[in-house]
């Protein structure tokens, strides 16, 4: 707590920050602990694989191209499904949110369907349309659709009427009101919805691939376990974590930062009532 003063005095000559160095040390420590625990536990690799086994499995999966293919499959499925859920969520959120009647009409049923988690839909979807991409697409866009819809709705309903009246007095058309007031004002909420949905969707994707797909990271993890190739299971889990962190850092956070920077201030000023 008290060392914060020292940080400011220290010249910033290092190209990585102290937090990053410490974080790297933390990751190395976990790897080391893993190796030590392998020596102590001393069980067959199919039960508790060592870092070396996992690295070997990783090399093999890279060489025969399976890992790249599965990564591409998972990312593509995720992108298409999240994109579908997001756009549908925004469209319906705006449509319903702009009318008091529709939001009263549909509010409770939306809440009910939001409560039926996507995981629970997968069995029924398997009965209806079988295994494969359509089932995954529906289940994953479902889990993005509802939080986005719900938050868009909240965003639209909490806009200060005075903002809309102001632009209208200036002669804005309905479309202009939508694009210059409602959408920007609802954007932080939409982002919140996307964030919640994207997190659930990623885990949902892994689960859906375990049950309803023949490729992808979820399939790799599941198939590795049923064929007793536990090293592959661990490769799949690590890749999953890395893929999520990558998406989080490169995609979600920049978007979030952009919307907050761009619109957050506007909202803070107009938010006094």
């Amino acid at each position: 707590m008290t060392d914060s003063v020292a940080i400011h005095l220290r010249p910033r000559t290092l190209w990585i920050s102290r937090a990053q160095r410490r974080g790297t040390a933390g990751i190395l420590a976990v790897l080391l602990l893993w190796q030590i625990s392998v020596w102590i536990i001393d069980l067959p690799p199919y039960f508790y694989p060592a870092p070396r086994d996992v690295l070997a499995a990783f090399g093999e999966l890279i060489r025969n191209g399976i890992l790249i293919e599965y990564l591409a499959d998972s990312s593509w499925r995720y992108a298409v499904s999240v994109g579908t859920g997001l756009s549908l969520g925004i469209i319906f959120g705006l449509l319903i949110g702009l009318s008091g009647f529709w939001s009263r009409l549909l509010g409770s049923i939306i809440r009910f369907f939001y409560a039926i988690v996507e995981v629970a839909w997968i069995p029924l979807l398997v009965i209806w349309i079988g295994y494969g991409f359509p089932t995954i697409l529906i289940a994953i866009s479902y889990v993005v659709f509802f939080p986005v819809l719900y938050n868009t709705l909240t965003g639209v309903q909490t806009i200060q009427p005075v903002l809309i009246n102001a632009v209208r007095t200036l002669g804005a058309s309905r479309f202009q009101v939508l694009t210059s007031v409602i959408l920007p004002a609802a954007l932080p909420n939409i982002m919140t919805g996307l964030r919640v949905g994207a997190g659930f969707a990623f885990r949902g994707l892994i689960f859906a691939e375990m049950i309803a797909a023949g490729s992808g990271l979820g399939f790799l993890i599941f198939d590795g376990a049923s064929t007793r190739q536990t090293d592959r299971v661990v490769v799949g889990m690590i890749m999953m974590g890395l893929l999520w962190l990558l998406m989080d850092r490169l995609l979600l956070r920049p978007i979030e930062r952009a919307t907050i920077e761009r619109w957050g201030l506007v909202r803070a000023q107009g938010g006094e009532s």
Partner: protein
Amino acid sequence: MIARRSRPFMRRGSAALTGILPFIALFAAWALLPALAGIPEFKLPSPGKVLNTFTNMMADGSLMAHVWASLQRLAAGYLLGNLIAIPLGLAIALNRAVSETLTPVLSFFQSIAGIAWVPLAIIWFGVGKGSVLFVIANTIFFASIYSTVIGVRTIPRVLFRASLSHGASRWDIISNVVIPGAMVQILVGLRTSMAYGWRALVAGEMIAGTDGVGYMTLEAVQWYQAEIVILGMIVIGVLWLLMDALLFTPIERVTVRRWGMVR
């Protein structure tokens, strides 16, 4: 354009009534569609058949047994995960070096927490209760600890300095600055960890369970008993709504009042 705020006197009653209409429409469509569109019974059983299954399974106690098994497991995983995660999270976050060292590790484990552990859990603990409990507790632990650590780290530093300059002891700081300051994030963690834990429970039971609502729902697919699948979905939805209304809405109301709910 905006939700109209007129007619407040009849709004509550009519809103509740309007809200029921889509359920009636959905129910009517469900009842009529199979006959009109020729959807076979094994794909979309009639509401009557689902209701029949419901009464049968209530009568022989199997439905309540599944529900009870799931809820018990969720409660055990939730308590276990949070009771370790929150104190540990606070302890980690108190020390800057420790929290900087562990943040990347925690965020990595948080991102793979849950369903991805199911296959490994089956290898370690076999199919059954142990695996599912491990997966839920793991999910809840990482969701909650991450939130707690973030909560402490986002407390404005000036609050620490202010209390230190007033002669606060370490314990004073923990009880007067850290815990109240992180409380909102801890509650967020309690809530998100429940949402993640619930999904992990249903998914875990589907793959590794031998009982519970998730097991009941996926097991029925093998026998093409769509009526049990649909019943399972409704039960899953209703249980979540109940938990949300009974557990989280009151907590949120209290915290909003007490802490003025931030931002």
